[in-house]
């Protein structure tokens, strides 16, 4: 019987595994890197072991360190979670060799499914339908478009879609390199690509007594860059007959490799109801909670039970299918900026009470550039799909996620999209309906801007030590309005607005110098202690992270907003630098208070190219003196396991290169400078620039 479980993972999945262990009375051991020392998963476990370093290769991927951690902490079992070493047969072997219980399938099954090429061969033997691929079929038989896939690993890394023959070579090379870097195995293969296919997978569970069952399907068609972001069970495209066929194929696949424990067989479902095996994930899936919701089972508990040698219980052998469940993945990345990863500190993480939340972060959590960008999952369960959609949309609308940019706005838009609501899903859904911030939506959000300006002025007055009791912005001659400049959205692709205001007897407000239409009444909620901030109630006691409730009435409509101000600088006199999160029934807006007095020199020299995010330099495509054309990739940067290119903004000549391959860079760090090609005296650059 397992007494102490080492969870060889981090983030939300480590927290989720710990939760079941705690319920079952099993003591938990967390492991953590330097950057994760205070992470939520560490706090969710009973014991923690420090793995020195940050990079996964130094920490969460070090089999020797993990076995040692288990030994030192007295663990008798190891749960690998997903990702990292979850599908690493050598790790499974090492765990078992160390005399510990391995929560996962036998190493042989991992091995068999670990190579997609080999797995497909086995499936062909077992009579499970597969797509033609380059291991068997010729490129002509496969045809375009085709997908270049890494044989190892998963999660969309080392994957490239190729539509025409000339693209193939480059795509192969890129995929090989990415696969080598991500999985240590550069093997790739080409497979027929099914346009507008649906990703439907079946959860399987096998005990050590020869019972293998399917726990129905999940649909995970909404993906970005081949990574799932919305998953649901059951699939709106699967009827009972199809379900029965797919489940049978999945059980056959699992049995073929002698599977034990929880696993997932992934299929591609075409528009005609035909399906083909994609791969098998020999681990717990990220999206397992939707299956748990509709079956009422706890998959982690069942994994443990199987590992302890118990037969599957009756409720797992004949699982119910109750209602409908949908999961969204909250990621720290910006869909409006090509899914650029974001880093930094979360100041508030509240994802709702009427839904299941599997999170790896809470207020105060820091997102480092070293690991996956997924930070939490929100799962809603309803009697019908519509019911689940509405519950989930409601939870996301009321969510408070303050900190690095996340995809929450995109998730809200997906859930509201008519095609999604209609259940017409396919893997190119987001290519057709990006659900990013629509163009033209940079019009000033009047109500949040006013709420932010009012809150900031109230905070300024509260912090004032001189003449604190005098009304805010009082003027004997109100000639010029008070103002604050706020940027909406990200610092680069957002819009900037100036909110002007007089708070005297003749109140007035302007946004970008235009009077705000209709009457604006900010005096509805009266602050009880200070008359200067008549419109702001203090909701939380801490001045650094106080939440305020602001009431703004525009055009007779009363808006109650929650405003959360986070100051980057302590003790400033309100001259900029604060981040303002405004949440209300109309949604959430993040505003950045512009620096009123930017330091000279803080603006970059012309032609400087900066790192768009923290990360490591993978490659430099150019050298000093090279002529470059606008749009040409110059530097490849790896961050959060994704490769990002920095492109030339205009034609020019590379004047200076300030970084080297392998170097870790910070967001905003200058990588290289480019002289524009306006004049020919290209050798004049030097110390003077």
């Amino acid at each position, binding site marked *: 019987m397992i007494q102490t479980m080492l969870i060889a993972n981090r983030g939300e999945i480590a927290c989720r595994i710990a939760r079941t262990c705690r319920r079952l009375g099993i003591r938990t051991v967390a492991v953590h890197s330097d950057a994760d020392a205070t992470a939520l998963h560490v706090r969710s476990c009973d014991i923690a072991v420090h793995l020195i370093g940050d990079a996964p290769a130094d920490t969460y991927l070090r089999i020797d360190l993990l076995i040692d951690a288990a030994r030192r902490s007295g663990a008798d079992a190891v749960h690998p979670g997903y990702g990292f070493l979850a599908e690493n047969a050598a790790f499974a072997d090492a765990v078992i060799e160390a005399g510990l219980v391995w929560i996962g399938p036998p190493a042989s099954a991992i091995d068999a499914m670990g190579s997609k090429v080999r797995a497909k061969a086995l499936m062909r033997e077992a009579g499970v339908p597969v797509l033609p691929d380059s291991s068997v079929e010729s490129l002509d038989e496969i045809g375009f478009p085709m997908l270049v896939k890494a044989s190892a690993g998963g999660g969309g890394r080392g994957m490239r879609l190729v539509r025409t023959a000339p693209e193939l070579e480059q795509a192969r090379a890129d995929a090989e390199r990415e696969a080598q870097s991500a999985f240590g195995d550069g093997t790739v293969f080409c497979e027929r690509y099914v346009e507008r296919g649906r990703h439907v997978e079946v959860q399987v569970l096998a005990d050590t007594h020869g019972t293998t069952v399917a726990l129905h399907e999940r649909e995970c068609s909404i993906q970005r860059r081949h990574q799932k972001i919305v998953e649901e069970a059951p699939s709106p495209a699967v009827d009972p007959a199809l379900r029965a066929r797919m489940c049978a194929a999945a059980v056959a696949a699992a049995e073929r490799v002698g599977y034990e424990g929880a696993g997932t067989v992934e299929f591609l479902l075409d528009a005609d109801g035909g399906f083909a095996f994609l791969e098998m994930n020999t681990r717990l899936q990220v999206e397992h909670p939707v299956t748990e919701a509709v079956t009422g089972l706890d998959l982690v508990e069942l994994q443990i039970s199987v590992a302890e040698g118990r037969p599957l219980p009756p409720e797992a052998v004949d699982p119910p299918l109750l209602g409908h469940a949908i999961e969204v993945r909250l990621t720290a990345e910006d869909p409006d900026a090509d899914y650029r990863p974001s880093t930094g500190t979360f100041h508030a993480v509240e994802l709702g009470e009427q839904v299941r939340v599997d999170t790896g972060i809470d207020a105060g959590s820091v997102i480092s550039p070293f690991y996956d960008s997924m930070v939490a999952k929100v799962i809603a369960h309803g009697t019908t799909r519509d019911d689940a959609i509405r519950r989930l949309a409601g939870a996301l609308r009321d969510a408070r996620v303050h900190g690095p940019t996340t995809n929450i706005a995109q998730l809200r838009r997906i859930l509201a999209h008519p095609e999604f609501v209609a259940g017409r899903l396919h893997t190119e859904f987001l290519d057709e309906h990006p659900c990013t911030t629509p163009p033209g939506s940079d019009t000033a959000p009047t109500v949040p801007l006013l709420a932010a300006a009012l809150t900031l002025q109230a905070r300024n007055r509260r912090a*004032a030590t001189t003449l604190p009791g*005098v*009304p*805010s912005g009082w003027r*004997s001659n109100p*000639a010029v309005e008070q103002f604050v400049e706020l940027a909406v959205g990200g610092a680069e692709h957002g819009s900037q607005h100036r909110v002007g205001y007089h708070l005297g007897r003749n109140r007035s407000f302007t946004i970008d110098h235009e009077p705000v239409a209709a009457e604006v009444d900010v005096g509805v909620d009266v602050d009880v202690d200070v008359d200067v901030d008549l419109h702001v109630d203090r909701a939380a006691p801490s001045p650094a992270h106080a939440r305020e409730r602001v009431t703004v009435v525009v055009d007779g409509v009363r808006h109650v907003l929650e405003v959360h101000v986070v100051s980057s600088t302590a003790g400033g006199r*309100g001259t900029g630098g604060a981040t303002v999160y405004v949440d209300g029934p109309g949604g959430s807006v993040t505003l950045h208070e512009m620096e009123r*007095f930017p330091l*000279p020199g803080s603006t970059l020299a012309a032609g400087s190219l900066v790192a768009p995010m923290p990360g490591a330099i993978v490659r430099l495509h150019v050298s000093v003196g090279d002529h470059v054309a606008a749009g040409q990739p110059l530097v490849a940067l790896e961050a959060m396991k994704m490769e990002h290119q920095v492109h030339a903004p205009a034609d020019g000549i590379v004047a200076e290169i300030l970084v080297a391959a392998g170097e870790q860079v910070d967001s905003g760090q200058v990588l290289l400078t480019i002289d524009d090609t306006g004049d020919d005296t290209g050798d004049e650059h030097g110390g003077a620039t």
Partner: protein
Amino acid sequence: MPVVHDEIDERSEVFAANRSALLQLIAEHDEQLALANAGGGEKYIARHRSRGKMLIRERIEYLLDPDAPFLELSPLAAWGTDFPVGAGVVTGIGVVEGVECMISGSDATVRGGASGPAGVKKSLRALEIAIENRLPFISLTESGGADLPHQSDIFIPGGQTFHDITTLSAMGVPTMSIVFGNSTAGGAYQPGMSDYVVMIDKRSKVFLGGPPLVKMATGEESDDESLGGAEMHARVSGLADYFATDEIDGIRLGRQVMRRINHRKLGPGPSGPGRPPRLDPEQLLGIASVDLRVPFDPRQVIGRIVDDSEFDEFKPLYGPSLVTGFAEIHGFPIGILANHRGVLFNEESEKAAQFIQLANQIDTPLVFLQNTTGYMVGKEYEQRGIIKDGSKMINAVTNSSVPHLTINMGSSYGAGNYGMCGRPFGPRLLFTWPNAKTAVMGPTQLAGVMSIVSRQSAESMGRPFDEEADASMRAMVEEQIERESLAPFMSGKLYDDGIIDPRDTRTVLGIALSVVHTNEVRGRHGTGFGVFRM
């Protein structure tokens, strides 16, 4: 605690009449402020902006701590003269990096920022306030120098500007000049005499003689930048301590200086935040008499400006035409002297003299709420020594050394103006309600006196008295005196520090009290005598 009892009936005719008339006067005052704010007019504002420059009030707005107050002073200077309203200068008290400062700057859209006689007076008044209250002084400099055709009214008095800046410095009060444009000839001593000088690249021009004058004097060919550009002064002459890239950067540097002046106020701080009055300040508009013959109870005003409407009256039964007592405004303790029913009699004068001595004994600032027609005349009062008693009061006011703040709520006539700490008696700050009048006596009385005198003169010389001429003379004199006693006229002559909306009285006094506590607050005591019981 005794709280002022609300005796105001909002439905009364008097209240309604006062309120509507006062609102009208406030609107008229706002029009005059708009004139001052419009500076040199659209054309010059457009030209100023086309050079990428901010208007003076915009510069001040940037300089101030966000959402902190600004008390502009003498905005109607030069009202009623040939010079533009505001006199082309903006002065006021504002908070910069938590420090209450005197801020002064020329409006370059008005005659290139050149100072006229009223502008000089206004600047000097600002410096005087800075010296009396130890306020750090920030000059936002951009001035073409003296308005030369009026040099005779500027040259001699204007020199005091430089004298006063360095006086402040010697007192240990930092001074700073941020030079936004021209500061040439005599104006060059503005930065020259300042403790800290910020100059702005390509904008600041500071030299004694420009290229034409240099050419005339020595034949040397030169240009603005080499004679007085910011970079030259920052790198070569050393006149500039800080070199800014643009206006906002100049203001940033100015704020940086103020952050580091290690500012300490010499007076005590407030006892607490100070609760707002229980009675509604909005009602002050219905209380203040527009017809000055109608008296009003100053307690109803006090109850609307002091903390929690709490007022501890001193000697309420003695000399009831003058209300005296203690209260707090924004947490600062004050003694109040307020006229009731206009006239100061013997008892009122003695009560005032005693109360002023008491306030000095306990180092408590005094607030004078004026609404007086002066000291009582007539046989009975002369025989009871009204001159002696009035003199005691004026003596006490003169030699009192606690800070005085004066609000003219209605009339300020005759020697009553002196006894109630009018301008000649040096209150630290003096503000006027829009309905108020100030003169040696009321227009009717003055015209009547003149008429009686000329009638007597005609009689004594045996000449027939021309009734018709007398009537027209009386009308003319009445009209002139009335006009010259009005608030804008007094403001125009710098006889007050500004006209304020009565509803702002508490705020203005709150700022003023904080300002006076920047200096030591010490009454006249330890003179060897105790307080004289009168």
